Protein backbone atom coordinates (compact mmCIF):
# COMPACT_ATOMS: atom_id res chain seq x y z
CA UNK A 1 0.00 0.00 0.00
CA UNK A 2 2.70 2.45 1.02
CA UNK A 3 4.85 2.04 -2.13
CA UNK A 4 1.73 2.55 -4.25
CA UNK A 5 0.80 5.72 -2.33
CA UNK A 6 4.38 6.93 -2.70
CA UNK A 7 4.30 6.41 -6.48
CA UNK A 8 0.96 8.19 -6.70
CA UNK A 9 2.24 11.13 -4.63
CA UNK A 10 5.40 11.25 -6.73
CA UNK A 11 3.32 11.44 -9.90
CA UNK A 12 1.17 14.22 -8.42
CA UNK A 13 4.27 16.20 -7.38
CA UNK A 14 5.74 15.90 -10.89
CA UNK A 15 2.44 16.96 -12.48
CA UNK A 16 2.23 19.97 -10.18
CA UNK A 17 5.86 20.96 -10.85
CA UNK A 18 5.22 20.80 -14.59
CA UNK A 19 1.96 22.75 -14.28
CA UNK A 20 3.65 25.61 -12.44
CA UNK A 21 7.02 25.73 -14.25
CA UNK A 22 6.66 23.78 -17.54
CA UNK A 23 10.17 22.70 -16.57
CA UNK A 24 12.50 21.65 -19.37
CA UNK A 25 15.77 19.73 -19.19
CA UNK A 26 18.71 20.90 -21.31
CA UNK A 27 21.35 18.17 -21.64
CA UNK A 28 24.38 20.30 -22.43
CA UNK A 29 27.41 18.07 -21.99
CA UNK A 30 25.87 15.09 -20.18
CA UNK A 31 23.31 12.83 -21.85
CA UNK A 32 20.21 11.40 -20.16
CA UNK A 33 21.72 7.92 -19.86
CA UNK A 34 21.55 5.73 -16.73
CA UNK A 35 25.15 6.11 -15.55
CA UNK A 36 25.87 6.45 -11.86
CA UNK A 37 26.19 10.15 -11.14
CA UNK A 38 26.26 12.81 -8.50
CA UNK A 39 24.22 15.79 -9.72
CA UNK A 40 25.38 18.96 -7.96
CA UNK A 41 23.35 22.14 -8.38
CA UNK A 42 22.77 25.73 -7.30
CA UNK A 43 20.27 26.00 -4.45
CA UNK A 44 17.97 29.01 -4.27
CA UNK A 45 14.56 27.52 -3.57
CA UNK A 46 12.95 24.73 -1.59
CA UNK A 47 11.70 23.22 -4.85
CA UNK A 48 15.16 22.68 -6.38
CA UNK A 49 15.26 18.97 -5.51
CA UNK A 50 11.78 18.42 -6.92
CA UNK A 51 12.66 20.18 -10.18
CA UNK A 52 15.75 18.04 -10.88
CA UNK A 53 13.83 14.95 -9.84
CA UNK A 54 10.99 15.91 -12.22
CA UNK A 55 13.12 16.32 -15.36
CA UNK A 56 15.05 13.06 -14.95
CA UNK A 57 13.74 10.23 -17.16
CA UNK A 58 11.61 7.79 -15.13
CA UNK A 59 14.14 4.93 -15.02
CA UNK A 60 16.92 7.30 -13.91
CA UNK A 61 14.67 9.01 -11.36
CA UNK A 62 14.00 5.67 -9.65
CA UNK A 63 17.72 5.28 -9.01
CA UNK A 64 18.47 8.89 -8.01
CA UNK A 65 18.37 9.91 -4.34
CA UNK A 66 18.51 13.51 -3.14
CA UNK A 67 20.74 14.21 -0.16
CA UNK A 68 18.57 16.29 2.18
CA UNK A 69 18.31 17.58 5.73
CA UNK A 70 16.88 15.10 8.22
CA UNK A 71 16.08 17.93 10.62
CA UNK A 72 13.68 19.30 7.96
CA UNK A 73 12.23 16.14 6.43
CA UNK A 74 11.58 14.17 9.61
CA UNK A 75 9.65 16.86 11.49
CA UNK A 76 6.11 15.90 10.43
CA UNK A 77 4.45 12.71 9.14
CA UNK A 78 3.78 14.25 5.71
CA UNK A 79 7.35 15.49 5.28
CA UNK A 80 8.64 12.13 6.50
CA UNK A 81 6.47 10.33 3.92
CA UNK A 82 7.62 12.60 1.07
CA UNK A 83 11.28 12.63 2.12
CA UNK A 84 11.66 8.93 2.86
CA UNK A 85 9.07 7.16 0.73
CA UNK A 86 8.50 9.43 -2.27
CA UNK A 87 11.94 10.99 -2.82
CA UNK A 88 13.85 8.16 -1.09
CA UNK A 89 16.22 10.84 0.19
CA UNK A 90 19.52 10.20 1.94
CA UNK A 91 18.69 12.09 5.12
CA UNK A 92 21.54 13.87 6.89
CA UNK A 93 21.13 15.55 10.24
CA UNK A 94 22.60 19.04 10.10
CA UNK A 95 22.70 19.22 13.93
CA UNK A 96 26.06 17.67 14.75
CA UNK A 97 25.09 16.67 18.31
CA UNK A 98 22.05 14.65 17.08
CA UNK A 99 23.98 12.43 14.69
CA UNK A 100 24.38 8.73 15.21
CA UNK A 101 26.02 8.28 11.80
CA UNK A 102 28.72 10.15 9.99
CA UNK A 103 26.96 11.86 7.05
CA UNK A 104 29.67 10.77 4.65
CA UNK A 105 29.16 7.11 5.62
CA UNK A 106 25.46 7.36 4.75
CA UNK A 107 26.21 9.04 1.43
CA UNK A 108 28.93 6.56 0.41
CA UNK A 109 26.67 3.68 1.43
CA UNK A 110 24.07 4.97 -1.02
CA UNK A 111 26.71 5.34 -3.75
CA UNK A 112 27.97 1.80 -3.13
CA UNK A 113 24.36 0.57 -3.47
CA UNK A 114 24.46 1.97 -7.00
CA UNK A 115 22.32 5.06 -6.43
CA UNK A 116 22.87 8.39 -8.16
CA UNK A 117 22.71 11.44 -5.87
CA UNK A 118 21.44 15.01 -5.98
CA UNK A 119 23.41 17.40 -3.78
CA UNK A 120 23.57 21.13 -3.19
CA UNK A 121 27.19 21.93 -2.33
CA UNK A 122 26.43 25.49 -1.19
CA UNK A 123 25.22 23.87 2.04
CA UNK A 124 21.99 25.81 2.38
CA UNK A 125 19.67 27.90 0.27
CA UNK A 126 21.29 30.89 -1.38
CA UNK A 127 19.25 33.97 -0.50
CA UNK A 128 21.92 36.49 -1.44
CA UNK A 129 22.30 38.57 -4.60
CA UNK A 130 25.32 36.55 -5.77
CA UNK A 131 24.58 33.67 -8.16
CA UNK A 132 26.48 31.01 -6.25
CA UNK A 133 27.94 30.71 -2.74
CA UNK A 134 31.30 28.98 -2.08
CA UNK A 135 31.00 25.18 -2.08
CA UNK A 136 31.36 23.08 1.06
CA UNK A 137 33.75 20.13 1.10
CA UNK A 138 31.24 17.25 0.85
CA UNK A 139 31.38 17.07 -2.91
CA UNK A 140 35.19 16.81 -2.82
CA UNK A 141 35.01 14.04 -0.22
CA UNK A 142 32.54 12.05 -2.34
CA UNK A 143 34.56 12.62 -5.50
CA UNK A 144 37.85 11.51 -3.98
CA UNK A 145 36.36 8.52 -2.13
CA UNK A 146 34.50 7.20 -5.22
CA UNK A 147 36.48 8.54 -8.21
CA UNK A 148 34.60 6.33 -10.71
CA UNK A 149 31.33 8.27 -10.24
CA UNK A 150 30.55 11.10 -12.69
CA UNK A 151 29.97 14.49 -11.05
CA UNK A 152 27.46 16.35 -13.20
CA UNK A 153 27.07 20.11 -12.69
CA UNK A 154 23.47 21.38 -12.84
CA UNK A 155 22.05 24.90 -13.13
CA UNK A 156 18.43 25.54 -12.13
CA UNK A 157 17.09 28.71 -13.72
CA UNK A 158 14.23 30.87 -12.49
CA UNK A 159 12.81 28.75 -9.68
CA UNK A 160 13.79 31.40 -7.14
CA UNK A 161 11.30 33.77 -8.85
CA UNK A 162 8.60 31.10 -8.78
CA UNK A 163 8.87 30.76 -5.04
CA UNK A 164 11.05 33.33 -3.28
CA UNK A 165 11.95 32.73 0.36
CA UNK A 166 8.98 33.16 2.68
CA UNK A 167 6.26 32.84 0.02
CA UNK A 168 3.73 30.03 0.12
CA UNK A 169 1.96 30.30 -3.23
CA UNK A 170 4.19 29.55 -6.24
CA UNK A 171 3.68 31.74 -9.29
CA UNK A 172 3.78 30.03 -12.68
CA UNK A 173 6.94 30.89 -14.64
CA UNK A 174 9.02 28.81 -17.05
CA UNK A 175 12.05 27.08 -15.52
CA UNK A 176 14.94 25.14 -17.04
CA UNK A 177 17.37 22.62 -15.59
CA UNK A 178 20.70 22.47 -17.47
CA UNK A 179 23.03 19.48 -17.08
CA UNK A 180 26.69 20.09 -17.95
CA UNK A 181 29.71 17.89 -18.74
CA UNK A 182 30.80 15.57 -15.87
CA UNK A 183 33.92 16.40 -13.84
CA UNK A 184 36.22 14.26 -11.66
CA UNK A 185 38.94 14.96 -9.13
CA UNK A 186 42.23 15.11 -11.00
CA UNK A 187 45.52 13.56 -9.98
CA UNK A 188 47.01 15.65 -7.20
CA UNK A 189 44.25 18.28 -7.26
CA UNK A 190 43.78 20.08 -3.95
CA UNK A 191 40.44 20.41 -2.19
CA UNK A 192 40.31 24.17 -2.83
CA UNK A 193 41.23 23.85 -6.51
CA UNK A 194 38.58 21.18 -7.04
CA UNK A 195 35.84 23.12 -5.24
CA UNK A 196 36.64 26.23 -7.26
CA UNK A 197 36.52 24.22 -10.48
CA UNK A 198 33.23 22.54 -9.49
CA UNK A 199 31.70 25.92 -8.68
CA UNK A 200 32.85 27.34 -12.02
CA UNK A 201 31.32 24.33 -13.82
CA UNK A 202 27.90 25.10 -12.32
CA UNK A 203 28.17 28.85 -12.97
CA UNK A 204 29.15 28.23 -16.60
CA UNK A 205 25.68 26.73 -17.19
CA UNK A 206 23.83 29.87 -16.07
CA UNK A 207 22.31 31.86 -18.98
CA UNK A 208 24.97 34.06 -20.54
CA UNK A 209 22.88 37.22 -20.91
CA UNK A 210 21.90 38.62 -17.56
CA UNK A 211 18.46 40.23 -17.33
CA UNK A 212 18.76 43.67 -18.92
CA UNK A 213 19.04 46.34 -16.24
CA UNK A 214 16.53 49.08 -16.83
Amino acid sequence: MKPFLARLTGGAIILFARFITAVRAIWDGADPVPRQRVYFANHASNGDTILIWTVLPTAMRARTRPVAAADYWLTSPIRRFIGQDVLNAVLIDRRVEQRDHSPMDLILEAVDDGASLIIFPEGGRNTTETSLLPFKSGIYNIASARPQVDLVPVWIENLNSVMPKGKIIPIPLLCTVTFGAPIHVEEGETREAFLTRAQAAVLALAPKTEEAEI
Partner: protein
Amino acid sequence: MTGPRGDFLLLLCGIGGILVLASLIGTILKRRIAPDGSNPTIENLNARITAWWGMAALLAVAFLAGRAGVVILFAFCSFAALREFMTLTTKRVADHWPIAVAFFIILPVQYYLVWIDWYGLYSIFIPVYVFLLLPVVTVLQGDTKNVFIRISETQWALMICVYCASHVPALLSLRIEGYEGRNVLLIAFLIVVVQLSDVLQYTWGKLIGKHAVAPALSPSKTWEGLIGGVATATLIGAALWWITPFTPVQAAGLSLAITLAGFFGGLVMSAIKRDRGVKDWGHLIAGHGGFIDRLDSVVFSAPIFFHLVRYFWSSV
Protein backbone atom coordinates in the same frame (compact mmCIF):
# COMPACT_ATOMS: atom_id res chain seq x y z
CA MET B 1 -25.53 16.54 -44.06
CA THR B 2 -26.93 19.87 -43.02
CA GLY B 3 -27.10 21.88 -39.80
CA PRO B 4 -24.23 22.80 -37.51
CA ARG B 5 -23.10 19.20 -36.96
CA GLY B 6 -22.95 18.56 -40.70
CA ASP B 7 -21.02 21.75 -41.45
CA PHE B 8 -18.70 21.06 -38.56
CA LEU B 9 -18.00 17.52 -39.75
CA LEU B 10 -17.42 18.76 -43.28
CA LEU B 11 -14.95 21.35 -41.96
CA LEU B 12 -13.21 18.69 -39.86
CA CYS B 13 -12.87 16.47 -42.93
CA GLY B 14 -11.37 19.40 -44.84
CA ILE B 15 -8.83 20.15 -42.10
CA GLY B 16 -8.09 16.44 -41.71
CA GLY B 17 -7.54 16.21 -45.47
CA ILE B 18 -5.11 19.13 -45.46
CA LEU B 19 -3.19 17.60 -42.53
CA VAL B 20 -3.04 14.18 -44.21
CA LEU B 21 -1.66 15.88 -47.30
CA ALA B 22 0.86 17.85 -45.20
CA SER B 23 1.99 14.69 -43.37
CA LEU B 24 2.36 12.89 -46.70
CA ILE B 25 4.48 15.71 -48.13
CA GLY B 26 6.56 15.83 -44.94
CA THR B 27 7.19 12.08 -45.04
CA ILE B 28 8.10 12.10 -48.74
CA LEU B 29 10.47 15.06 -48.29
CA LYS B 30 12.17 13.29 -45.40
CA ARG B 31 12.52 9.99 -47.35
CA ARG B 32 13.88 11.76 -50.44
CA ILE B 33 16.20 14.32 -48.91
CA ALA B 34 17.31 13.28 -45.43
CA PRO B 35 15.97 9.94 -44.13
CA ASP B 36 18.45 10.10 -41.24
CA GLY B 37 16.86 13.31 -39.94
CA SER B 38 19.86 15.47 -40.79
CA ASN B 39 17.93 18.32 -42.47
CA PRO B 40 16.77 20.74 -39.76
CA THR B 41 14.18 22.48 -41.99
CA ILE B 42 12.44 19.20 -42.79
CA GLU B 43 12.66 18.03 -39.18
CA ASN B 44 11.09 21.32 -38.09
CA LEU B 45 8.39 21.01 -40.74
CA ASN B 46 7.49 17.51 -39.56
CA ALA B 47 7.52 18.57 -35.91
CA ARG B 48 5.14 21.38 -36.84
CA ILE B 49 2.81 19.08 -38.73
CA THR B 50 2.69 16.67 -35.79
CA ALA B 51 1.90 19.58 -33.48
CA TRP B 52 -0.83 20.73 -35.90
CA TRP B 53 -2.47 17.31 -35.62
CA GLY B 54 -2.45 17.70 -31.85
CA MET B 55 -3.94 21.20 -31.99
CA ALA B 56 -6.63 20.20 -34.48
CA ALA B 57 -7.57 17.18 -32.34
CA LEU B 58 -7.69 19.30 -29.19
CA LEU B 59 -9.89 21.92 -30.87
CA ALA B 60 -12.20 19.26 -32.29
CA VAL B 61 -12.65 17.67 -28.85
CA ALA B 62 -13.26 21.08 -27.26
CA PHE B 63 -15.83 21.95 -29.93
CA LEU B 64 -17.65 18.66 -29.44
CA ALA B 65 -17.66 19.24 -25.68
CA GLY B 66 -19.51 22.49 -26.40
CA ARG B 67 -19.30 25.76 -24.49
CA ALA B 68 -17.53 24.28 -21.45
CA GLY B 69 -14.89 22.61 -23.60
CA VAL B 70 -14.08 25.78 -25.53
CA VAL B 71 -13.95 28.00 -22.43
CA ILE B 72 -11.70 25.55 -20.55
CA LEU B 73 -9.41 25.08 -23.56
CA PHE B 74 -8.85 28.81 -24.00
CA ALA B 75 -8.54 29.41 -20.25
CA PHE B 76 -5.70 26.89 -20.34
CA CYS B 77 -4.15 28.60 -23.40
CA SER B 78 -4.32 31.91 -21.52
CA PHE B 79 -2.64 30.31 -18.52
CA ALA B 80 0.19 28.89 -20.62
CA ALA B 81 0.62 32.17 -22.52
CA LEU B 82 0.63 34.24 -19.33
CA ARG B 83 3.21 31.88 -17.83
CA GLU B 84 5.47 32.49 -20.84
CA PHE B 85 4.84 36.23 -20.86
CA MET B 86 5.46 36.76 -17.14
CA THR B 87 8.73 34.83 -17.40
CA LEU B 88 10.11 37.69 -19.52
CA THR B 89 8.73 40.71 -17.62
CA THR B 90 10.51 42.92 -15.10
CA LYS B 91 9.78 41.51 -11.66
CA ARG B 92 10.79 42.03 -8.07
CA VAL B 93 9.93 40.02 -4.98
CA ALA B 94 7.23 42.64 -4.23
CA ASP B 95 5.40 41.50 -7.39
CA HIS B 96 4.84 38.03 -6.01
CA TRP B 97 1.32 38.76 -4.75
CA PRO B 98 0.14 40.84 -7.73
CA ILE B 99 1.32 38.10 -10.12
CA ALA B 100 -0.28 35.36 -8.02
CA VAL B 101 -3.53 37.38 -8.11
CA ALA B 102 -3.23 37.69 -11.90
CA PHE B 103 -2.89 33.93 -12.36
CA PHE B 104 -5.20 32.57 -9.71
CA ILE B 105 -7.93 35.22 -9.44
CA ILE B 106 -8.05 37.50 -12.50
CA LEU B 107 -7.66 34.76 -15.12
CA PRO B 108 -10.35 32.45 -13.68
CA VAL B 109 -12.73 35.38 -13.07
CA GLN B 110 -12.39 36.63 -16.66
CA TYR B 111 -13.17 33.17 -18.05
CA TYR B 112 -16.00 32.68 -15.57
CA LEU B 113 -17.56 35.95 -16.78
CA VAL B 114 -17.20 34.74 -20.38
CA TRP B 115 -18.73 31.42 -19.36
CA ILE B 116 -21.81 33.05 -17.76
CA ASP B 117 -21.99 35.42 -20.73
CA TRP B 118 -21.82 38.69 -18.74
CA TYR B 119 -20.65 40.88 -21.60
CA GLY B 120 -21.04 44.14 -19.64
CA LEU B 121 -18.48 43.00 -17.10
CA TYR B 122 -16.03 40.78 -18.99
CA SER B 123 -15.45 43.52 -21.56
CA ILE B 124 -14.30 46.00 -18.89
CA PHE B 125 -13.10 43.79 -16.04
CA ILE B 126 -9.40 43.77 -17.02
CA PRO B 127 -9.11 47.11 -18.90
CA VAL B 128 -10.90 49.07 -16.15
CA TYR B 129 -11.05 47.30 -12.80
CA VAL B 130 -7.81 45.32 -12.94
CA PHE B 131 -6.08 48.29 -14.54
CA LEU B 132 -6.90 50.40 -11.50
CA LEU B 133 -6.85 47.87 -8.68
CA LEU B 134 -3.85 45.64 -9.45
CA PRO B 135 -1.36 48.56 -9.20
CA VAL B 136 -2.83 49.22 -5.76
CA VAL B 137 -1.90 45.68 -4.71
CA THR B 138 1.57 46.28 -6.17
CA VAL B 139 2.34 49.59 -4.49
CA LEU B 140 1.00 48.39 -1.15
CA GLN B 141 4.02 46.05 -1.06
CA GLY B 142 6.09 49.21 -0.64
CA ASP B 143 8.73 48.68 -3.33
CA THR B 144 8.91 51.55 -5.82
CA LYS B 145 11.95 50.44 -7.84
CA ASN B 146 10.86 50.23 -11.51
CA VAL B 147 7.25 50.28 -10.33
CA PHE B 148 6.00 52.04 -13.48
CA ILE B 149 7.55 49.36 -15.69
CA ARG B 150 6.41 46.54 -13.43
CA ILE B 151 2.74 47.51 -13.31
CA SER B 152 2.68 48.35 -17.03
CA GLU B 153 4.17 45.02 -18.07
CA THR B 154 1.87 43.00 -15.82
CA GLN B 155 -1.17 44.87 -17.10
CA TRP B 156 -0.18 44.42 -20.73
CA ALA B 157 0.48 40.73 -20.14
CA LEU B 158 -3.05 40.38 -18.77
CA MET B 159 -4.55 42.31 -21.68
CA ILE B 160 -2.80 40.19 -24.30
CA CYS B 161 -2.81 36.76 -22.72
CA VAL B 162 -6.11 36.82 -20.85
CA TYR B 163 -8.41 39.61 -22.05
CA CYS B 164 -7.75 39.32 -25.79
CA ALA B 165 -7.55 35.52 -25.81
CA SER B 166 -10.86 35.26 -23.92
CA HIS B 167 -12.58 36.92 -26.90
CA VAL B 168 -12.27 33.63 -28.79
CA PRO B 169 -14.71 31.72 -26.51
CA ALA B 170 -16.72 34.95 -26.15
CA LEU B 171 -17.71 34.50 -29.81
CA LEU B 172 -20.05 31.77 -28.54
CA SER B 173 -22.25 34.35 -26.85
CA LEU B 174 -23.00 36.46 -29.94
CA ARG B 175 -26.65 36.12 -31.02
CA ILE B 176 -27.01 36.24 -34.76
CA GLU B 177 -30.41 35.78 -36.37
CA GLY B 178 -30.63 32.58 -38.35
CA TYR B 179 -27.26 31.40 -37.02
CA GLU B 180 -28.40 30.01 -33.65
CA GLY B 181 -26.46 27.04 -32.31
CA ARG B 182 -23.67 27.41 -34.84
CA ASN B 183 -21.40 29.98 -33.15
CA VAL B 184 -18.65 27.45 -32.63
CA LEU B 185 -18.15 27.64 -36.40
CA LEU B 186 -17.26 31.36 -36.00
CA ILE B 187 -14.35 30.26 -33.81
CA ALA B 188 -13.35 27.65 -36.36
CA PHE B 189 -13.52 30.32 -39.09
CA LEU B 190 -11.33 32.73 -37.09
CA ILE B 191 -8.72 30.13 -36.19
CA VAL B 192 -8.55 28.48 -39.61
CA VAL B 193 -8.16 31.83 -41.42
CA VAL B 194 -5.57 33.23 -38.99
CA GLN B 195 -3.49 30.07 -38.85
CA LEU B 196 -3.61 29.52 -42.60
CA SER B 197 -2.57 33.13 -43.06
CA ASP B 198 0.48 32.49 -40.83
CA VAL B 199 1.43 29.35 -42.75
CA LEU B 200 0.84 30.97 -46.14
CA GLN B 201 2.81 34.10 -45.23
CA TYR B 202 5.67 31.82 -44.24
CA THR B 203 5.35 29.77 -47.44
CA TRP B 204 5.09 32.77 -49.79
CA GLY B 205 7.97 34.40 -47.96
CA LYS B 206 10.15 31.29 -48.36
CA LEU B 207 9.23 30.97 -52.05
CA ILE B 208 9.54 34.54 -53.35
CA GLY B 209 10.20 36.77 -50.33
CA LYS B 210 12.87 39.43 -50.91
CA HIS B 211 11.86 42.73 -49.28
CA ALA B 212 11.59 42.71 -45.49
CA VAL B 213 8.64 44.66 -44.05
CA ALA B 214 10.48 45.58 -40.86
CA PRO B 215 14.07 44.29 -41.03
CA ALA B 216 14.82 45.54 -37.53
CA LEU B 217 12.07 43.32 -36.08
CA SER B 218 11.94 40.19 -38.18
CA PRO B 219 13.92 39.39 -41.32
CA SER B 220 11.54 36.54 -42.17
CA LYS B 221 8.47 38.78 -42.57
CA THR B 222 8.59 40.05 -46.17
CA TRP B 223 6.24 42.13 -48.31
CA GLU B 224 5.90 39.21 -50.73
CA GLY B 225 5.01 36.88 -47.87
CA LEU B 226 2.59 39.40 -46.37
CA ILE B 227 0.74 40.18 -49.60
CA GLY B 228 0.73 36.59 -50.85
CA GLY B 229 -0.29 35.15 -47.49
CA VAL B 230 -2.98 37.73 -46.75
CA ALA B 231 -4.43 37.47 -50.27
CA THR B 232 -4.56 33.65 -50.26
CA ALA B 233 -5.92 33.47 -46.72
CA THR B 234 -8.57 36.06 -47.62
CA LEU B 235 -9.61 33.99 -50.62
CA ILE B 236 -9.81 30.83 -48.50
CA GLY B 237 -11.78 32.78 -45.88
CA ALA B 238 -14.24 33.89 -48.57
CA ALA B 239 -14.55 30.29 -49.73
CA LEU B 240 -15.49 29.31 -46.17
CA TRP B 241 -18.49 31.68 -46.14
CA TRP B 242 -20.85 28.72 -45.90
CA ILE B 243 -19.88 28.00 -42.29
CA THR B 244 -20.50 31.66 -41.30
CA PRO B 245 -23.45 34.05 -41.28
CA PHE B 246 -21.61 36.21 -43.87
CA THR B 247 -21.88 36.50 -47.64
CA PRO B 248 -18.70 35.54 -49.55
CA VAL B 249 -17.75 39.23 -49.91
CA GLN B 250 -18.32 39.91 -46.21
CA ALA B 251 -16.33 36.78 -45.32
CA ALA B 252 -13.48 38.10 -47.48
CA GLY B 253 -13.59 41.51 -45.78
CA LEU B 254 -13.51 39.99 -42.30
CA SER B 255 -10.71 37.62 -43.35
CA LEU B 256 -8.70 40.60 -44.55
CA ALA B 257 -9.24 42.40 -41.24
CA ILE B 258 -8.23 39.42 -39.12
CA THR B 259 -5.22 38.43 -41.21
CA LEU B 260 -3.88 42.00 -41.07
CA ALA B 261 -4.47 42.19 -37.31
CA GLY B 262 -2.76 38.81 -37.00
CA PHE B 263 0.24 39.95 -39.03
CA PHE B 264 0.74 43.06 -36.90
CA GLY B 265 0.27 40.98 -33.76
CA GLY B 266 3.12 38.76 -34.85
CA LEU B 267 5.22 41.84 -35.55
CA VAL B 268 4.61 43.36 -32.10
CA MET B 269 5.38 40.09 -30.34
CA SER B 270 8.57 39.69 -32.41
CA ALA B 271 9.69 43.14 -31.29
CA ILE B 272 9.19 42.15 -27.64
CA LYS B 273 11.11 38.89 -28.10
CA ARG B 274 13.93 40.83 -29.74
CA ASP B 275 14.03 43.30 -26.86
CA ARG B 276 14.26 40.45 -24.33
CA GLY B 277 16.84 38.54 -26.39
CA VAL B 278 14.86 35.33 -26.91
CA LYS B 279 14.01 33.46 -30.09
CA ASP B 280 10.81 31.83 -28.88
CA TRP B 281 8.44 32.56 -26.04
CA GLY B 282 8.66 29.00 -24.73
CA HIS B 283 9.24 25.38 -25.69
CA LEU B 284 5.96 23.62 -25.06
CA ILE B 285 4.98 22.96 -28.67
CA ALA B 286 7.61 21.07 -30.67
CA GLY B 287 8.61 23.00 -33.80
CA HIS B 288 6.52 26.04 -32.90
CA GLY B 289 8.20 27.38 -29.76
CA GLY B 290 5.78 28.45 -27.07
CA PHE B 291 2.03 29.04 -26.88
CA ILE B 292 2.42 32.75 -27.60
CA ASP B 293 4.45 31.99 -30.73
CA ARG B 294 1.43 30.14 -32.10
CA LEU B 295 -1.29 32.33 -30.59
CA ASP B 296 0.05 35.85 -31.15
CA SER B 297 -1.90 36.43 -34.36
CA VAL B 298 -5.10 34.83 -32.96
CA VAL B 299 -4.87 37.00 -29.87
CA PHE B 300 -4.59 40.24 -31.84
CA SER B 301 -7.36 39.39 -34.28
CA ALA B 302 -9.89 37.87 -31.83
CA PRO B 303 -11.21 41.07 -30.18
CA ILE B 304 -11.34 42.86 -33.55
CA PHE B 305 -13.25 40.01 -35.18
CA PHE B 306 -15.51 39.78 -32.12
CA HIS B 307 -16.44 43.46 -32.19
CA LEU B 308 -16.88 43.67 -35.97
CA VAL B 309 -19.29 40.73 -35.88
CA ARG B 310 -21.02 42.01 -32.78
CA TYR B 311 -21.52 45.50 -34.26
CA PHE B 312 -22.70 44.49 -37.71
CA TRP B 313 -24.41 41.12 -37.19
CA SER B 314 -25.30 40.53 -33.58
CA SER B 315 -28.60 41.52 -32.04
CA VAL B 316 -27.15 41.56 -28.51
